[in-house]
C-alpha cells in the first residue's frame, strides 16, 4: 500500500492567513523532506527532518516518528507561496530512496 498519505490535496488561502499540510506514514519512517514544486517543475527544498521541528521564516515543519506523521505550517501566506507542496519520506529499509506524497496544490489569492 501507499506509504505516504498527504492532505489536503488542494488548498486555497487568502493572503495573510495560515494553514497546515499533513503527511501520515503507514510504515516507520527515518526522515521526511518537504518540497515546493513551481510551475516549471523545479523542486525547491523547504525542510529535511529526522525528528523534531524546524522553522524557516513563515514556514514551520514538525516530524513525529513515533506517531508517524509530519506537518508543514504556513503562516501569513503570500502570493509567492502558491505551488504544489510535497512531502517525501525515507523508509528505514535503507538505500536512501524516498516515497513522495500525492501533493497539495496551494493557491494563495489577494
Amino acid at each position, binding site marked *: 500500500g501507499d506509504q505516504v498519505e498527504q492532505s489536503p490535496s488542494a488548498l486555497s488561502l487568502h493572503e495573510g492567513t495560515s494553514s497546515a499540510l499533513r503527511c501520515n506514514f503507514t510504515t516507520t519512517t*527515518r526522515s521526511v523532506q518537504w518540497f515546493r514544486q513551481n510551475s516549471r*517543475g523545479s523542486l*525547491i*527544498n523547504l525542510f529535511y527532518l*529526522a525528528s523534531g521541528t524546524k522553522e524557516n521564516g513563515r514556514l514551520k515543519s514538525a516530524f513525529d516518528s513515533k506517531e508517524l506523521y509530519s506537518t508543514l505550517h504556513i503562516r501569513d501566506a503570500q502570493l509567492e507561496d502558491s505551488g504544489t507542496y*510535497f512531502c517525501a519520506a525515507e523508509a528505514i529499509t535503507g538505500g536512501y*530512496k*524516498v516515497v*513522495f506524497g*500525492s501533493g497539495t496544490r496551494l493557491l494563495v489569492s489577494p
Partner: protein
Amino acid sequence: NSKVIQTPRYLVKGQGQKAKMRCIPEKGHPVVFWYQQNKNNEFKFLINFQNQEVLQQIDMTEKRFSAECPSNSPCSLEIQSSEAGDSALYLCASSLPQQDTQYFGPGTRLLVL
C-alpha cells in the same frame, strides 16, 4: 538552492526510439537518484547509485532502462525503446551518503509521440 544539472530540459521522441537524459550531481554528492513524475504528479523511484554502484532499482528500470554513473562523467538514464506511457518529468537528485537532504535538478520533460 540546488546545483544539480539536468540536460536536456525537453526531449521529444517517437515510440520505439531511445531517449537519453543526463545529470550532473552536486559536487561532493556520491548518491544519485532518478525519479519519474507523471502527469498526475505521482512520483516513482527508478534507480539510485552510490558512486558507480547501483543501490536499488525497480523492475521496470532493470528491464527497459539503461542507467549509469561513471566516474568523472555525467550520470545518464536511457529508455531503450520509448513508449507513450514514458512521457513524464524525469528528476535527478543527489545527496550525501548519510541521512540527508536530496537536492533535485530541474528535470527532463520527455514527450513520447
